[in-house]
């Protein structure tokens, strides 16, 4: 999966019982890829001692405040590993 800037994506609703860097406040929310932010080991694998951990592209994804909180005009940009995301098919 390669996501170019502007691609609409949805953060997964997963609620794993292990460590993850997918913040609860964006789960299930739709945002837009700002840019790819490098390739990094998946924190979920590292925290569970899985060796070698999966290495994935991390994407900076921006979410509109109104979608996250029901109000506000700001953007929140969150860095999300590829497996936290799915393309948002309209």
């Amino acid at each position, binding site marked *: 999966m390669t996501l170019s800037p502007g691609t609409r994506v949805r953060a997964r609703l997963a609620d794993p019982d292990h460590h993850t*860097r997918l*913040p609860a*406040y964006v789960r299930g929310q739709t945002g837009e890829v700002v840019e790819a*932010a*490098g390739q*990094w080991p998946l*924190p979920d694998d590292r925290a569970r001692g899985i060796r070698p951990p999966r290495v994935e592209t*991390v994407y*900076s994804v*921006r979410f509109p*405040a109104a979608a*996250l*909180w029901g109000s*506000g*005009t*700001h*953007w*929140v*940009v*969150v*860095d999300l590993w590829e497996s936290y995301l799915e393309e948002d098919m309209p």
Partner: protein
Amino acid sequence: MGADHAGHPAAVRVRQLEEQVIAAGLATDAELDATLARLYAHASPLNGSRIVARAWADPGYAARLLADGNAAAAELGFDTGHPGSGYRLKVVPNTPGTHNMIVCTLCSCYPVSLLGPSPSWYKSLAYRSRAVREPRAVLAEFGLRLPSGTQIVVWDASAENRFLVLPARPPGTDGLAEEELAALVTRDGLIGTAAV
């Protein structure tokens, strides 16, 4: 380590964690001490200020800084790429219509070497939860009241991707030398909770 904090309850927990790490063979006491010593030896917001001042003074440097924060920091002698503790440095520029602000909602990720040890409020639950939800109100509490038309962008950091705000150059500073410009920049300006 951290003898000055030895009596603090958190220090006891940290020491227990260190002992588990050492017992598991992941690192030695000396390695942990050396890592912290290296991290804090030159960590200061003066480093971030120098980067900002150079960017204000040199448009070519500013362009390189926005394209590749790590490489531009290295030009000034700041190494952000230590094996095992390296990270991508992303510099986000304030413009007349946009104001950037940094938070780490899940913990307290922060470019320590460029900004110095993070302030306690940066690690507080209040800042971490409110910055993403009501940044305009949080900024007002810091004394920064932005025009209602200013677009606020909040960047939620991770250990792998950390941010530095490039404040807008204040008006009336055209004649200043780079060192004088650097003296205008504050740590809070680099986090985005102050204008400069």
